[in-house]
């Protein structure tokens, strides 16, 4: 097939290269519009509090102040990004109502003639908050008596009646009982910021025909458009989203945070409105990669074969779930690693705390599973006296193997990939390892 290909498989130069090196590429905030207003947000200074009152009087006197928006201005204020694909319940507030659940949560949006005026007015808003006890650790959040972050009485996302996404395959307990070794590990990772060099931004512009054009650096135009339409309770046909040029995203620009408020402000003022995160907002307020705590318990035979793997994972979703419930399902499908293990049990918890919400990031649900499992594999190697390569070859999944989520492996090439890596770095494999393939029918032959 390759020989027949003319263009696919060739390193043709990037079509946007000239634009990038000459500076002609237009990123979102490289655009300006006549009469454009600036939107800045008053954020919670504390991790968890009741909102007793908001005093805008001083802010309204700032020269250049145009108007303030609070939750009463937002037609459908409580939403969940993944509601579009049927995920429930709606639980995040476009603008806070009676309670804030993380430091940095938006409470009031200020629209002003200049960015400086918007910032000054933001600083002049007086909040009356009553601080509440907060919870910051995924396992503490699940203990009885922990402060409850959600509005439904516990701190986990519920998966069809279960507090976690479960995978059950074979019988791990029976396999643990007959295993020669039990190898255990606990893996902890901290939140990570996407840190794109271009911050999250959009500009909403009223169009002549009564519609709104929204220039945005979202990763997903229709995700943003549809969520904005729901939040503003307007038909999607009144919105026109334009993007496609993004200064780095890594999953951080799938959340729908700036577009609904900017569009609402454009509707209320009849003028173009720009809402761009400052660098500190990108770093401190935008979603992170979740913190994870992953417990791995493996039953291993003397020869290094893994006969049972039990994974209990807690992802810190922060105050709202955003994309994290889906990350846990993806995690559960992959948390056993690329290995053929006959008995697997996975419990993956999406836990609410008073941290800044986490969401999607490159490697969604899997990056930290790979960290845990691949360090665990070295632990196993050490426990049975194998080298790190051998334990992986011995357990590698192959085509036809049933994965724990009951899908047969089809495109497995772990073995070939490890063989190539060994050759690349000059690591000598055993003759058996060198002869292995991911297709068991061809094993040792051809």
């Amino acid at each position, binding site marked *: 097939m390759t020989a027949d290909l003319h263009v696919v498989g060739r390193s043709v130069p990037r079509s946007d290269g000239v634009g990038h090196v000459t500076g002609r590429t237009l990123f979102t905030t490289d655009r300006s519009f006549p009469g454009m207003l600036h939107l800045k947000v008053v954020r919670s200074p504390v991790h968890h509090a009741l909102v007793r009152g908001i005093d805008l009087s001083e802010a309204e006197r700032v020269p250049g102040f145009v108007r303030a928006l609070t939750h009463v201005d937002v037609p459908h204020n409580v939403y969940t990004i993944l509601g579009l694909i049927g995920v429930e319940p709606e639980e995040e507030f476009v603008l806070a109502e009676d309670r804030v659940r993380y430091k940095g949560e938006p409470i009031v949006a200020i629209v002003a003639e200049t960015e400086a005026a918007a910032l000054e007015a933001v600083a002049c808003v007086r909040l009356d908050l009553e601080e509440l006890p907060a919870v910051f650790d995924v396992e503490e959040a699940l203990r009885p008596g922990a402060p409850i972050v959600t509005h439904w009485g516990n701190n986990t996302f519920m998966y069809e009646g279960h507090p976690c996404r479960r995978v059950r395959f074979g019988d791990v307990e029976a396999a643990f009982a007959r295993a020669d070794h039990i190898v255990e590990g*606990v893996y902890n990772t901290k939140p990570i910021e996407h840190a794109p060099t271009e911050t999250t931004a959009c500009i909403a512009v009223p169009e002549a025909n009564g519609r709104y054009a929204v220039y945005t650096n979202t990763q997903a135009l229709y995700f943003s458009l549809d969520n904005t339409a729901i939040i503003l309770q307007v038909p999607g046909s009144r919105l026109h989203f334009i993007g496609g040029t993004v200064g780095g995203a890594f999953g951080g620009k799938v959340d729908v945070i700036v577009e609904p408020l900017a569009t609402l402000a454009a509707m209320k003022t009849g003028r173009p409105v720009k809402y761009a995160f400052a660098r500190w907002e990108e770093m401190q307020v935008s979603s992170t990669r979740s913190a994870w705590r992953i417990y791995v318990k493996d039953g291993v035979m003397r020869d290094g074969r893994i006969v049972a793997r039990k994974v209990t994972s807690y992802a810190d979703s922060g105050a709202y779930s955003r994309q994290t419930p889906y990350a846990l399902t993806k995690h559960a499908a992959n948390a056993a690693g690329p290995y053929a293990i006959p008995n697997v049990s996975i419990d993956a918890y999406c836990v609410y705390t008073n941290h800044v919400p986490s969401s999607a990031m490159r490697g969604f649900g899997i990056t930290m599973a790979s960290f845990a499992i691949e360090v665990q594999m070295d632990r196993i190697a050490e426990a049975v006296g194998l080298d790190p390569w051998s334990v992986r070859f011995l357990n590698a999944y192959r085509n036809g193997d049933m994965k724990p989520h009951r899908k047969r492996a089809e495109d497995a090439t772990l073995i070939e990939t490890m063989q190539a890596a060994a050759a690349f770095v000059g690591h000598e494999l055993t003759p058996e390892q060198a002869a292995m393939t991911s297709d068991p029918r061809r094993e040792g032959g051809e």
Partner: protein
Amino acid sequence: MAKLRGTGIAAVNYPTGMNLGGDPSQALIHATTSGSFVVTLSATDLGQGLRTVIAQIAAETLGVGVDDVFIDTADTDTGPHDMGTFASRATHRVGNAVIAAAKEAREALLEVAAEELEASRDDLETDGLGNIRVRGAPGRSVKVTDIASLAQFTYGRTISGRGAWMKPRSAVDPETGAMDPDSTEAHACTVAEVEVDTETGVVTVISIKSAYEVGRQVNPALVHGQIVGGAWMGMSHALYETTTPYYPDPGHRPKDFSEYLMPGAHETPEIDCVVLEYPSSNGPYGVKGIGEMTANSPIPAIVNAIYHATGVRIDELPVTPELVLRGLEAKERHASGGVTPSTAGD
């Protein structure tokens, strides 16, 4: 006090496409009267080069040169629906949609060419260089650019195509977790070499060498770019980055690039790779998605290399110098077992 070297490995797979599927993409293609083709999408290019690889896929399927294909994205008034660029899905999903659209447009093109050449449609083929010719009849050929113009001005026809692609949504069994989450899987195996300064706890990554299996590479230079940039990000995740340095304590959050730690130009190790191609059955020309996975295997490979160098097993990210020093101290106290540390150069 010494500088200890060690190597570590990690092997991973990574699924292609939005988890559980149900994430459609559409594409429209039409020919202009000057014979170029415009592919209209609403997919976003995040910097990975989506516009370029989609143009390649369209050109390949249409049988024209890549310079004759333009990607018009992303505008919801003109571009048909697309789920978005995430989950290593864009090249796979959009590519499949574009192939479908390009096939339809190519049919329209060949029909007009058949009339113009007074040949049967079934006898026509494209040469991939912008010509349509009658199979086995040298000399009977016509330029795609000419057909594009003739279609409009002589025949009054449109040369266009529609395409959509979706993996149907899979349900999850809430009891067993049975599900069909992905379309295909790409693979990587990474070998990292590190040097650990036992005086300061500072880990220096010497090299990150990987083998990747990514299905078909549409554009090998772009694949290489993902692997190099991803290895850097993996190293950054392993050793430097966090928004919450004392997690679960929420304090001390960095607010800018001066406080949020990432390795800079000087800290970049040698990064190299080999790439295998085992085309997938359902990706465009056998593509698998690799956008996300390139940061994954470097992280455990580095952590395993630290253990190989020092005998200190670290279960936490990021691996700060403090964590390394505390590990070395604990190891001295307990004289726990493990691989014997080797000093650099031996």
